[in-house]
């Protein structure tokens, strides 16, 4: 791939396009913008292919490029975020609970989606890397080019902001097993 072999680069693209696209989509919530960011990211990768190391996974580097592209794009279109769309409706399809519980859960999801949108971009990237991709703190910090303590701090403030949005009595509407029962502590 480093010599410019397009077949090898296509394989590289097919291997890593999904996580990159997921990160871009989770941060921007715009499928078209996520598509653009995905393309920009891989064009950048092709441009610097000579410097890509083959002995380590390029995914953290790709994620870093993606989050940086998201920052710059979001900064340009801050305040022009579209209202909530049908993305949320996919969410509760698997719930077979009572209708009022489904409605309440949907409401919480809407509040959370708005809350995520309102977070500063660096905190958005932090929760996407940590809670969506399940990177460890060290990996997420490496991708975000910051220290582990900084990453912890970003996650802490992001959760604090989200917690303040969701009233306490509503937060308990969670998937089964999420709340801490007394018997779990035994």
């Amino acid at each position: 791939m480093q010599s410019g072999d397009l077949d090898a680069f296509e394989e590289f693209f097919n291997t890593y396009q999904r996580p990159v696209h997921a990160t871009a989509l989770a941060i921007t919530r715009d499928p078209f913008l996520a598509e653009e960011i995905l393309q920009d990211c891989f064009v950048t990768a092709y441009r610097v292919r000579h410097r890509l190391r083959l002995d380590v996974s390029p995914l953290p580097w790709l994620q870093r490029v993606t989050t940086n592209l998201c920052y710059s794009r979001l900064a340009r279109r801050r305040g022009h975020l579209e209202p909530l769309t049908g993305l949320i409706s996919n969410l509760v399809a698997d719930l077979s609970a009572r209708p009022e519980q489904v409605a309440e859960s949907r409401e919480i999801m809407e509040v959370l989606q708005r809350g995520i949108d309102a977070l500063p971009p660096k905190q958005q990237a932090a929760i996407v890397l940590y809670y969506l991709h399940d990177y460890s703190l060290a990996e997420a910090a490496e991708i975000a080019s910051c220290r582990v303590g900084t990453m912890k701090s970003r996650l802490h403030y992001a959760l604090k902001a989200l917690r303040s949005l969701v009233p306490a009595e509503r937060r308990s509407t969670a998937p089964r097993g999420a709340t801490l029962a007394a018997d779990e502590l035994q």
Partner: protein
Amino acid sequence: MSCSRVSRELLERFRFGETLDGRSDRHLEHLQVCHACREVVGLDLALVANLRRALRARVAGNEPSPGSWEVVRRRALGESPRLTWPQQLMRWTRFVPAGAVLTVMVFAVATSREASPPQLAYDRNWTAFQRLADTGDAWQMPWWLRERAPSPPPPPTHGILALAVPDVEAVPAPARVSGPLE
């Protein structure tokens, strides 16, 4: 162990996915007996679980479009090869003629002895003021210009215009006539 300490320390461990090792025994003992803390920790876990669901919902059902690779391939092929520094330097040589012309123009303006810029501005303001005053339209001038209108220029002291303007000091004052009031 206080509730605030339990909330702070234990929540952080849950939040950041740390395992509950021996260091957490005291926290767990507190949770066994403190209903408020148990609720707080449980609610926070629920929030994290909901957050994960919300994030997954953002990407659910959205895959990269099949045409993405074609766009990337086309853009990658269209990328110009990286230039070495002498080549980059050569790219700037196209601006040399324009730079030379600009330098000459700046030099010409800077060395011009026609009139200094402040004098030009003064003349322009005075001419505008005079034109409006002559037509009786001085009221059209903005107040800040009326108040800052330049004072009339001094009469010319040489040249042909000096002949046209009477020298006030040269005209003798009329003789004073003594009257009955003095």
